[in-house]
């Protein structure tokens, strides 16, 4: 489904602090599977995630989605693809402070112009499903870490994306909450969603919910 | 159930726009209803040969600015300083009020 061909990514290119985060990655990610990128920090797994999720463009190489090359598209089209295809759960959750959980969940759908009633209905259903219905009007800074993550997950799902991208989803959670996250992950798998996540948490990468683990080090894939 | 923020915003804006429109309507109506007064004043100006408004009565050149010669500051009234912009900024001191003339000068 997602194909990467000789993808390289440099930061501060041409300057004295030039740094190659990815140096030639070729990878094929299958649809409806849970794929984990594993590696120490600085291995380039988050950078790879941003390329897959159309948050950034590769310096060289190709990224294609459903056989269509998307690495050279202008920002507007990338944004549209990102909005329709990917849902993101960030490591720091990145919720908008001062707004309610419900508003945060609805945010990604605002630019689509979906009718408000329908949108709100869906956001409520999602929160309900993640057992957060009672917290819908709470401001995000009043939520616990686990609740914040579940709001972030609901937000990632509001546009009903094919692919869910999670960056270090259990890094800020204790074991109980991490297990709860894995349970949610399995339910996505059951729904037939593609999940791509980064982690070095054994609880995640060794779980049966994860179908494939890709190891990374120094911006390269590690062959096993 | 609370309204959407945009609905609240529209309500506020609509109220303000309504008030604004009411002002304009009020202006139109007052202009009509006051037309007779204005006509009467114009007629009085014609009958008496008035050349000025009775806005500022402190001195000759402020009572009848159109009749005063240009650039002259006549201190007819003890409080009248002069006609130039600075006169509007300098308020007379209270001491000046005390030694005011009591007989016609």
């Amino acid at each position: 489904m997602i194909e990467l061909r000789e993808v390289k990514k440099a930061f501060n290119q041409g300057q004295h602090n030039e740094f190659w985060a990815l140096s030639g990655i070729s990878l094929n990610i299958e649809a409806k599977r849970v794929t984990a990128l594993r590696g120490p920090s600085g291995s380039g797994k988050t950078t790879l995630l941003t390329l897959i999720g159309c948050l950034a463009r590769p310096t060289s190489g190709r990224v294609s989605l459903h056989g269509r090359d998307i690495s050279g598209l202008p920002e507007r089209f990338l944004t549209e693809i990102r909005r329709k295809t990917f849902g993101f759960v960030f490591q720091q959750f990145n919720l908008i402070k001062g707004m309610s959980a419900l508003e945060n969940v609805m945010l990604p759908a605002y630019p689509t112009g979906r009718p408000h009633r329908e949108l709100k209905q869906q956001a409520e259903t999602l929160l309900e499903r993640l057992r957060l219905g009672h917290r819908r009007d709470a401001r995000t800074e009043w939520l616990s870490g686990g609740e914040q993550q579940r709001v972030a997950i609901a937000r990632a799902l509001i546009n009903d994306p094919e692919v869910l991208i999670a960056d270090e989803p259990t890094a800020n959670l204790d074991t109980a909450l991490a297990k709860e996250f894995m349970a949610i992950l399995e339910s996505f798998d059951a729904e037939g969603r593609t999940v791509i996540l980064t982690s070095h948490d054994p609880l995640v990468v060794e779980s049966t919910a994860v179908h494939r683990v890709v190891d990374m080090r120094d911006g390269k894939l590690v062959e096993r | 159930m609370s309204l959407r923020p945009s609905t609240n915003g529209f309500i506020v804006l609509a109220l303000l726009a309504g008030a604004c429109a009411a002002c304009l309507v009020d202006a139109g109506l007052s202009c009509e209803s006051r037309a007779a007064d204005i006509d009467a004043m114009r007629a009085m100006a014609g009958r008496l040969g008035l050349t000025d408004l009775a806005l500022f009565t402190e001195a000759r050149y402020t009572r009848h600015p159109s009749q005063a010669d240009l650039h002259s500051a006549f201190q007819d009234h003890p409080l009248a300083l002069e006609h130039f912009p600075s006169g509007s900024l300098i308020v007379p001191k209270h001491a000046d009020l005390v030694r005011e003339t009591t007989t016609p000068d």
Partner: protein
Amino acid sequence: MPIWFERQRHLIDFTLASLMRRKGRNLGLLLVYGLLVFVLASVTLYTHALRHEAAVILEGAPEVVLQRLVAGRHDLIPPGYIERIGRLRGVQQIRGRLWGYYYDAVVKANYTFMVPGDGSVAKGTLIIGPALARQRGLALNNGVSFRSYSGELFSFTVAAVLPQASELASADLVLVNEEDFRAFFAYPAGHYTDVALSVANPKEVRNVAAKLANLLPDSRPILREEMQRTYASVFDWREGIMLALLSAAILAFSILAWEKASGLSADEKREIGILKAIGWETGDIIKMKLWEGGLISVTAFLAGFVAAYVQVFRLGAPLFEPVLKGWAVLYPRFELVPVIDGLQIATLFFFTVFPYMAAVLVPIWRAAVTDPDAVMRA
């Protein structure tokens, strides 16, 4: 269009929810902004209405007033002048005017004594202006005495009080009979204060004035259009003073607004990054911010304008009376006819709304074009 509309509504929802997070701060900004519009609009509305009223009333003024000057000072018109003007072509009517000032020590105010040309005031009586009647506490048929400049006491009966509606032009008038006037001021017989001329053809007015200046070299003709222009410029500079004083306030507000609108905090930058990462386009963010700027400035403008209108035309402009009326003892009490100059209001709108929107937009532009992957890396 429903999708477009719904999208804009969502953006407005977001921007309002976002503003409500710092409720005190944003309401404060709105208040200061509205106050600024209120003051500016008040000045504009008040001076325009007053100027308009002056222009309309003075349409009734004589076409030409002829003064005689001696050593650069206004002097009496001696006998014979009126007869000499009488032969001038184009002049329809000539009238010697009698008027002067009287300082009333009782209320410490100056009055304008005047003899109406139509002889409508009987001997021994007065017709007085409404502000004067109020100040001296006079009513119909009351007796009133004035000590003349020669020291003699003169008694009069009030025959009428001029209508309150005419106060703007008649506040301090004392209309007297010609005989009384001459006796009271010891005015030499046959002399007049000045001469009012009516000219039938408006195109002839300038010719008549030129001929008058030739015929009577010691005189100064004042045209009606000059009187009207005097009023236009008087309020222009008084308005200018107000604006000059206000410019400090405007500057202070601009700094506040610029700081508020343009100084993007790290939090706001991060939020923009989040919005971009979750699928907002750069254009959506700019539109959202435009709505923010537009809503704040339009709300402030409308509120300020309505408040200014009510203040100026319904409450009698208490804010500007001291500045615009000067510091005379005798204030005319008048209600302005609300004449609104659309162009002035449009100008005010332009100069208050657009700078704010620009201040909102410029920094957002820079922030909104950053890469969305910044949130992941942070």
